[in-house]
């Protein structure tokens, strides 16, 4: 393994991302199907924000148990609340309470568990609140995609924009799938996380596309390599960069997730960072294995690049013939072919892979 690591470290790595695009498409299609299935079967576990309800938080005093807390609250609200440990606190979720009921519950738990009443936090969410958040999130999503399409079309070209957006949708679907299958709660903070993923998912793609644009800019004059091969080289080239940027982006999120889970228990920090974490991992995969292959698929339909691909194929075929002839002629290994031909053979080999 040290070999791989040091190669990674040097940035000297050569993985055929684009050539294996059928594999990636298959994998992504499978993951997306599983995700959609998960959402359809399990549905998303919506947080209290989406159904309306009340949440109370107060310090966990020694000797208090879940059962005690549940009992105390049930006596007042008349139904079984959900009681969770959240860091140093109890978190009690009930159906939506009005102001009077909230203060009654606050008084009761304050008396029973010896906390001060003003130290009992409460949150009351109207039943339509979450819907509104979601509604806004959808609008935000649509506007964002449009803005990004426009921007990338101007900064790069529409094919790149389209590829980036497809990768983005891919990320969102899979992240939703992860939430559906694991049963993680979806809260407004989660939606926020989803929306943020968009930015990150694109960040990587933008870095890769920028490289592809540069590499393919002076392609075509010679018939050395196809667009596909050039894109793959660009991708290999930026692989280290992509991995590094993804890792440095994920590290702080992981830190928040860690703190949010261990120190605070449930809450904004955890919800947000979890969505970001899942989304970023998926986003890293998709910017390498989805965005670029799709771009290549789109590009190879362009007459210019198709023509190039033909020329390259023809050249390679003749080169291969020549090489075969050389082998036949004097029995020597192809290694004997020198100079730039060497490169061509490398490419042909890679293409077969």
């Amino acid at each position: 393994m040290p070999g791989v690591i040091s190669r990674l470290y040097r940035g000297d790595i050569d993985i055929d991302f684009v050539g294996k695009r059928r594999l990636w498409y298959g994998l992504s299609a499978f993951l997306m199907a599983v995700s959609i299935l998960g959402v359809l079967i399990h549905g998303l576990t919506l947080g209290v924000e989406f159904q309306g309800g009340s949440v109370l938080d107060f310090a966990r005093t020694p000797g208090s148990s879940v059962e005690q807390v549940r009992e105390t609250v049930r006596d007042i609200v008349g139904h079984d609340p959900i009681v969770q440990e959240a860091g140093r606190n109890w978190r009690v979720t009930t159906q939506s309470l009005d102001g009077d009921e909230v203060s009654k519950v606050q008084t009761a738990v304050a008396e029973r568990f010896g906390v001060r009443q003003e130290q009992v936090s409460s949150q009351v969410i109207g039943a339509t609140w979450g819907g509104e958040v979601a509604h806004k999130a959808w609008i935000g999503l649509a506007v964002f995609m449009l803005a990004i399409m426009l921007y990338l079309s101007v900064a790069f070209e529409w094919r790149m924009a389209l590829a980036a957006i497809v990768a983005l949708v891919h990320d969102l679907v899979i992240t939703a799938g992860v939430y559906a299958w694991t049963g993680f709660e979806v809260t407004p903070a989660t939606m926020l996380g989803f929306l943020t993923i968009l930015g990150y998912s694109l960040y990587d793609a933008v870095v890769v596309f920028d490289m592809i644009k540069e590499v393919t800019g002076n392609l075509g004059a010679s018939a050395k390599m196809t667009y596909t091969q050039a894109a793959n080289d660009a991708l290999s080239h930026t692989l280290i960069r992509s991995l590094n940027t993804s890792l440095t982006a994920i590290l702080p999120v992981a830190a928040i997730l860690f703190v949010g889970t261990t120190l605070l228990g449930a809450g904004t920090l955890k919800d947000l960072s979890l969505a970001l974490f899942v989304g970023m991992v998926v986003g890293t995969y998709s910017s390498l294995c989805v965005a670029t292959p799709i771009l290549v698929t789109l590009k190879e339909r362009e007459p210019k690049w198709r023509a190039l691909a033909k020329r390259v194929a023809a050249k390679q075929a003749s080169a291969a013939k020549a090489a075969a002839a050389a082998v036949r002629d004097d029995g020597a290994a192809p290694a004997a072919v020198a100079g730039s031909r060497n490169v061509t053979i490398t490419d042909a080999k890679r293409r077969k892979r």
Partner: protein
Amino acid sequence: MAPPKSSQSRPGRTLLTLLALILAMGATVALQKAFVPKFGLDLAGGTTVTLTPVTLDGKAPSQESLDRAVNIIRARVNGTGISDAEVAKANENIVIQIPGVGQSEALKLVSTTAELRMRQVLAMAPAKMEPQQLPTEAPAPDPGMSPSTMPSAARKPSGAPSGGPGATASTTPAGRALASALTAPTPSPAARTGHRAGARSGAKGGAKRGAGSDSGSEGGPAADAGGGATPSAPPSPESADDPLAGQDTSGIDPALLTEFRKIDCTAKNRGQGAQDDPDKQIVACSDDGTARYILDKAAVQGTEISGATAGTDPTTGEWIVQVSFKSKGASQFADITRRITSLPAPRNQLANVLDGVVVVAPTIEEAIPGGSARISGSFNQVTATELADQLKYGALPLKFKQGSVESVSSTLGQDQLRGGLISGALGLLVVVIYLLLYYRGLGVIGVASLGCATIVTYLTVAVISYNAGFRLSLPHIVGLVVSIGITADSFIVYFERVRDEIKEGHRTLRSAVEVAWRRARRTILVADAVMFIAAVVLYFLAVGGVAGFAFAMGLTTLIDIVVVFLFTKPLMTIAARLRFFAKGHKLSGLDAERMGRTSPAEQTLQEA
């Protein structure tokens, strides 16, 4: 591009520019002693209410109506005596933030859309009866402002009414009633024109009579109101002190009389937001705190108003408010106007009660049977529109529902703050470790850049917190921590570019740094632009804490650009001159072994 000579002489200057920027911000922070930014309620403890407007057609409410709603809610919150409350517009929502918890009662009042009710005035008096020196108590005729005893402001109005008929001493407290009566004009049938002047003077007279005497039952006009009889001597005697002296109190609940005597309409909290029972008589203050009333049971409910528009009188050009009623309301309105128009003042006034206070109490000059009334008087466009809206929608120009109410105790807030800070420190630490392990010498530059970004971010937050009322909340902190990644990404893009250039082999470090910068710059700008677009979209389309998060993201993206341009790049240029980096020391992150051989793929690229 720029010749290498000049670009290499620049880094020092660029760094100095940044240093000056940091020092300037640091000095601002130090001078203002604003070292710790203000915290939002989720960190400091407090209650946050988000109100969502509900419109009939589902369209977004106009900004003006939102602004007006914000002002009314702010007035209500202040009226309940809560200090330090903040009421602000957040996109389409209104967010109320109140420090401290246990304010749920107050909050209930805040967002309710009070319904308008029309009630006959049974008795009326100036706001306050306490003995007063004329000049000090004389009101400044600014309606709606909290009444204050500002002698300087008071002198003017005390002089002005003296010219009026019968306005001498008694006008002082009644002056407010008069002022309100002036803005409280008379309704009249829509068909009628040209009685405007009459209506105004009628209103004036009516109000005065209302405040002063009641059909001459007892006491002269000046005898009752505000102890006007003896203006020079502070009048404290019971008779002069009784606001009801000289008024017909028949048919009024005795308990209300007591309440009426006690009520202080100049107080900050004069019952705004109180929900009045339509089937009971009530005591209420005028909107601007200048008069108090005993009012009969509701005669017409605001729900019976079908429309109200502000407009100008076609003949006179004067601003008026046109009110129309639904069928039931029209007959109710016809009944009440017919009944009271012939009564002596103040019983011929019909008070419009909204939000617990009397917004307008016009004298009814005649029976109005047509289901449509016209209110005229000294309106301008603003006041006419406001009254029309009040009649139409109730107090708030919009209906609101409480989207969420969140109250955070101070300990939970501290926990969250601690959690946020710890995760920030932890996130920064792991990124620093990673940068150092992976990039070694270059990593030091990256870490220095991160440190620089941290300082700039801290200073920016401190400065805008103190000067622009920015409050740091948990979503902000999360946004800032997440953004560590973005900032580090920019360095990585640049560093990798530098390494690429060196790997290509034909460049010295100095030139590699410059060439790499030109290429990396574009990538960084494009990628940051994407992040910034995300932040802007989130900021403007988000609900609740999302906006805070987006703000933090947008801010750090900008800071990232500043730091990369003004710090990382010049630092790289300087570092490239050092032997340590230029010779590819083992720990520099640029050593030969590290760079490896150039791979065939790269050869191809170069050849291409």
